[in-house]
């Protein structure tokens, strides 16, 4: 019964989103495209950060790599963009899978920093490889109306949300939640946690890269500082935590709220928009510390682990 209502609500939300372009308000579509993009990115973060309990600070690496690879293949090798996009998504997923193996052995803050380093190192390498555009980046042909990109981003966001829903209600989802609760115990009941974590990381990478390839075409110009901006990862994290980590709707809700708040702040104030946004985030943390959906589960069973003593 409650499930049926949920499906109905999901359908209504998707339908409303599909019909949004009928307003033919291009600004609204532009903003909505950005929100859909971040909803997809936050959902991708949620897979590894929210469900599995591994707080990645480097997911922007996959977004950036997807964008850069797709652009490089289409500009330098003259591949059709759709082929380039597919290759870029697969490549980034593989990248996530391979790097996930060593990185996912780390826990807590150490994992966070390692992923941050991963993103920064990826950017540094891309900046120095001419085939990948170097520091100069790529400019891609301008394509049709903004509606295409809205639907593409919305499609990825829906895919991400639906995927999250399916995962949460599957055995795989249980495995991820078990890893988040207690990884050793999960291993002790026979779960190959390395494989499960790496799969989640790779799925997260694939979704991030999908957004990246669409973003490159949407922006039509990309350069490393823009597509590897660590702030993008921070936004994924902030949106997910704000909406409710480990939930299906949380990342989407977070993306909608932050996206709209950003636009409102920029419209209301000429030179204090960051201040307003910052205060907004602080207010949410102070007054809704468990995320808006309120079912936020504290990372790793609610215990604050990893505190280390200062010693001489």
């Amino acid at each position, binding site marked *: 019964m409650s499930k049926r209502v949920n499906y109905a609500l999901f359908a209504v939300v998707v339908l409303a989103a599909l019909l949004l372009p009928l307003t033919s308000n291009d600004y609204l*579509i532009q903003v909505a495209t*950005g929100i859909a993009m971040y909803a997809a990115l936050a959902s991708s973060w949620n897979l590894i950060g929210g469900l599995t309990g591994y707080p990645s600070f480097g997911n922007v690496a996959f977004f950036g790599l997807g964008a850069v690879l797709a652009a490089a293949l289409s500009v330098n090798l003259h591949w059709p963009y759709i082929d380039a996009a597919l290759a870029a998504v697969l490549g980034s997923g593989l990248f996530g899978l391979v790097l996930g193996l060593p990185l996912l052995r780390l826990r807590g803050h150490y994992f966070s920093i390692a992923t941050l380093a991963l993103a920064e190192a990826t950017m*540094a390498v891309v900046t120095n490889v001419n085939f990948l555009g170097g520091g100069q980046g790529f400019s891609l042909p*301008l394509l049709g109306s903004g509606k295409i990109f809205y639907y593409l981003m919305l499609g990825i966001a829906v895919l991400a949300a639906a995927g999250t829903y399916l995962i949460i209600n599957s055995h795989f989802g249980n495995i991820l939640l078990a890893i988040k609760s207690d990884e050793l115990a999960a291993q002790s009941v026979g779960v190959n946690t390395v494989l499960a974590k790496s799969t989640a990381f790779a799925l997260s990478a694939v979704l991030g890269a999908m957004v990246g390839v669409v973003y490159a075409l949407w922006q*039509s110009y990309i350069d490393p500082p823009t597509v590897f901006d660590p702030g993008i990862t921070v936004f994924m994290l902030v949106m997910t935590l704000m909406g409710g980590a480990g939930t299906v709707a949380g990342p989407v809700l977070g993306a*909608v709220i932050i996206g709209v708040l950003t636009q409102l702040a920029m419209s209301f104030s000429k030179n204090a928009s960051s201040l307003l946004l910052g205060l907004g985030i602080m207010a949410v943390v102070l007054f809704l510390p468990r995320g808006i959906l309120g079912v936020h589960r504290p990372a790793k069973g609610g215990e604050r682990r990893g505190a280390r003593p200062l010693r001489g």
Partner: protein
Amino acid sequence: MVRKSVKLTGLFMAVSLLLVAALAGCGSQGAKQNTSNASAADTITIGAPDAATGALANEGKLVHDGYTLWQDVVNKQGGLLVGGKRYKINLVFKDDQSKPDNDKSLTEQMITQDGIKLFLSPYASPNIFAASTVAESHKVPMIAAGGGAKKIFERGYKYIFSSYPYSGEYLGSVLDLLKGRGIKTVAFLHADDLFSQEADQGGEAYAKSHGFDVVYSAQYPSGATDLSSQLTQIAQKKADALIGTGHFEEAVQLVKQAKQMNVNFKAMAFTVGPTMPAFAQNLGKDAEGVLGASLWTPDLPYKDDVFGTAAQYAALYKQSFGTEPDYHAAMASAAAEMMGLAIQKAGSADPQKVRDALAGLGTVHLFDGSFTIEPNGSIKGLVLPVIQIQNGKAVTVWPAPFDKNIKDIPLPPWSKR
């Protein structure tokens, strides 16, 4: 199971609807405001996303002030004379937080919600890239002031114009100056972003073809805070001159560390840095003698009807904003002025007509010099000056006859200062 309950989804719906409503409401409010302005029928509104906050806020403010000065001067003159009627200029700024993403959405917002059809660009090449795609797809003209990356104009866009020459041309005048001062070996050090790379490549190619010996060339990551080891290396190569192409902080850091490391050059020159008043303020007497590739100085012998001479422009600027203008501000004012000229030539503020007028402006003579608008929207023919810091002020030392102002080339060693 509490993972996804009906109540929460309901809440989610309600909150999103509320927010969308707020957004739409806010947007339409803005639109209303502007239509009421436009209904006065004697106002021309021009949009400009700009960097009021974020990493580019500093240069963003200079560009903002440059645009604003043109608006204020024109309005003080009674407005822009178009087809015998004077129109007030209304510039609408929106903070992009220095992020290209926001430039897209802000430009879109100004076009579709606020009904703005003419644009001046945000600062910095990546931001111009982003904003110009929106302008292009809506077929509204945008004049860029704040980025001369060649790539912007190689995309075949029809609605993007610029008041800046290509980045690759910035260093030509500096090298011409050095050539006449007995400099033979030069070291190039540049940041890894688009603008710095283009400027450096242009400069290095110019140096090699003009008989210089490039003894060192390296790229560093943007935002580098320690370049002392590069300076140590350059000292070993015995370079006569150091040419740095990067950002403001890096230029200051290079001068600081050259002194700290006691690395002496006969000349030091930078693209971004010396032209801004903050450069001499930050470095004090250590800035003395440093050369800066500029696009404009108040000493240049050009003038136009809006601002008068370059010197008068500088006076007006100082009166309004309290500081000396540097080229960022002047080039922004020039971009705004180009927009004014095009509107006058078109005889209307219709975006298509203004675009066609811009494309057909040909050679124009403004307070920042004479230049020709190319078919791809870039400009050609601007004579680029060079400045030198003397007694804490930027003094024009190039082109001739200003070369008589050159002092201290070769620079005295740090120990003798």
